[in-house]
């Protein structure tokens, strides 16, 4: 047996020795992801989390807004205050209308080099991941991807926890001697904070981009918007029903869809189902799929591996349907039906159908 975490753990005892040039790096920043006029909700979730980190450190929380000169950009600034930012760094420029790596990387690295934050959080979206990689490389600092938990340790460093390879372990990663400490977090991993009502305000630092369209090599020819009507809204659904390998064969997945339909729920599945082609990849739930935070999550024939668990732990109520009373999912589900999914699912579908229609007539 080889201990794969050995080389790393030989540095686990390393203490923070922050080089002189980073001593003045302060405050927590959240990148506010504005695309096509809309802020991705993950940005508000991260402001909620960033607020806690900033309070623990006794520093300020800032939102970083980049966009075209437009009302929607100003709305993103206001939204940042509403979700907890003390200050907003704003770069307004026509070059920042649609996301392109080059101008956004320049914008972010310029801001970091000038205003020197100690922590920078981004959503682990296609945009956030594209940007985070080049920003961290340009700044030559550490980046922890897809974190599921953030905390501040006794030395005042960011402790970023993420699942590690192997199916049942988590690891906590620090960026000891480099700044900023960067992390990406997937949508729905952190709870949506309460928005402040009424008038909100805060500091505003406007910074010019200093770039011309001719300097940007990549051009946007077109944008083909998704047909949102039939797109899976899994991440933000109130009720989710999912199936796993315990369903045995692809035809049985219909039982999951039937229950989802009665509940007006979204459906999804574990990763092996995607790999086998039973469901589309945007229906995968878990670390490498969607993170969900529904009020009710029903998981049928899913064992509850760590990569699945981290994607569903934010659910208010988890019902597991499994033949094995000792399956790992029992460690984090709230309710369980110990039984065969192929008979339980249709029974649940029928019972919910009756309950919801009977009551409707009565009401």
């Amino acid at each position: 047996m080889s201990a794969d975490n050995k080389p790393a753990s030989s540095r686990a005892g390393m203490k923070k020795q922050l080089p002189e040039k980073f001593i003045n790096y302060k405050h927590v920043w959240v990148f506010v992801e504005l695309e096509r006029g809309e802020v991705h909700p993950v940005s508000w979730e991260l402001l909620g989390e960033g607020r806690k980190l900033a309070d623990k450190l006794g520093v300020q929380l800032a939102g970083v807004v980049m966009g075209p000169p437009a009302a929607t950009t100003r709305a993103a600034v206001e939204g940042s205050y509403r979700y907890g930012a003390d200050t907003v760094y704003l770069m307004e420029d026509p070059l920042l209308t649609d996301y392109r790596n080059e101008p956004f990387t320049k914008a972010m690295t310029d801001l970091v080099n000038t205003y020197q934050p100690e922590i920078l959080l981004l959503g682990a979206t296609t945009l956030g991941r594209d940007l985070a990689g080049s920003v961290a490389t340009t700044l030559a600092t550490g980046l922890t991807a897809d974190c599921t938990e953030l905390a501040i340790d006794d030395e005042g460093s960011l402790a970023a926890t993420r699942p590690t390879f192997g199916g049942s372990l988590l690891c906590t990663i620090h960026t000891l001697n480099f700044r900023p400490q960067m992390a990406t977090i997937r949508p729905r991993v952190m709870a949506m904070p309460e928005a402040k009502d009424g008038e909100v305000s805060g500091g505003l630092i406007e910074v010019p981009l200093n770039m011309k369209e001719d300097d940007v090599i990549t051009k946007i020819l077109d944008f083909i918007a998704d047909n949102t009507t039939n797109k899976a809204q899994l991440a933000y659904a109130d009720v989710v029903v999912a199936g796993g390998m315990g369903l045995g064969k692809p035809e049985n997945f219909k039982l999951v869809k039937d229950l989802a339909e009665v509940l007006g729920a979204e459906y999804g599945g574990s990763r092996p189902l995607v790999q086998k082609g039973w469901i589309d990849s945007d229906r995968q739930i878990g670390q490498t799929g969607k993170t969900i935070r529904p009020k009710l999550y029903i998981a049928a024939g899913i064992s509850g591996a760590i990569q699945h668990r981290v994607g569903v732990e934010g659910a208010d109520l988890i019902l597991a349907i499994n033949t094995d009373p000792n399956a790992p999912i029992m460690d984090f589900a709230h309710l369980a039906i110990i039984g065969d999914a192929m008979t339980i699912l249709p029974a649940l579908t029928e019972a919910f159908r009756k309950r919801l229609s009977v009551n409707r007539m009565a009401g």
Partner: protein
Amino acid sequence: MHIVVCIKQVPDSAQIRVHPVTNTIMRQGVPTIINPYDLFSLEEALRLRDAFGGKVTVLTMGPPMAEDSLRKALGIGADDAVLLTDRFFAGSDTLATSFALATAIQKIMETEPVDMVFAGKQTIDGDTAQVGPGICCRLGMQQLTYVQKVESVDPAKREIVVHRRSEGGVQVLKTSLPCMITMLEGTNQIRYGTMDDMFRAARADVRVWSAAAAGIEDMTRCGLRGSPTVVKKVFAPKARAQKARPVDGEGAEALAAAAIEAIFASQPKLESDLLKQSAGY
């Protein structure tokens, strides 16, 4: 057209086990595969080579046994292979990995110019999606991640048009070569190599480079020492104080009924929400 494809040898995740006592990963005897996401990039690179001529060089960083994955790639149709292996690379995080790979690509460029670099969207073991962008940034290339489709390439004008997945849709982007591309999964199907490819792969010379041979002078930028991130601890997740409560009942109907009672008892508002919804509000 010369295309470099970065691949990684990873343990076959389906066969990974964790030691029940020590909580460490048991990799011994686990078969290795080419990171599945890399295959979509490899296939796209092979298609471009077939369409425009030129060659595909596969590059990996890893232990000496990672040569296997390069031979597999040669067997699928790649033309040339470079293995970057050195004990100085052990413990590299994404920053140190992209540094080593980018330096090796620069070394390759000294003798043969490179028009495109492909990398996997992410790996199944590290899963960070950061190495491709890291390499790209160091090489000063145009970055095209999450590509669904390579629409057209104009080698004379050195231009490429791709469809890139973004949050709410697809961006159609035009950029100049050289560029770095990561392909989205499911966008193509990896080919089977021909008999010729297989024979060639078995006999081919894989170039094996140490850090020094790849042109790396500053070893402090490699491996653990070149990695700003430090793994402080590895641990198993805590079970919740209470395990899942099994509902009582004989037979599917009784179990279903009991489960529904328990659900609505703990989430009273859920029932009224569902009712409103099913009544079509």
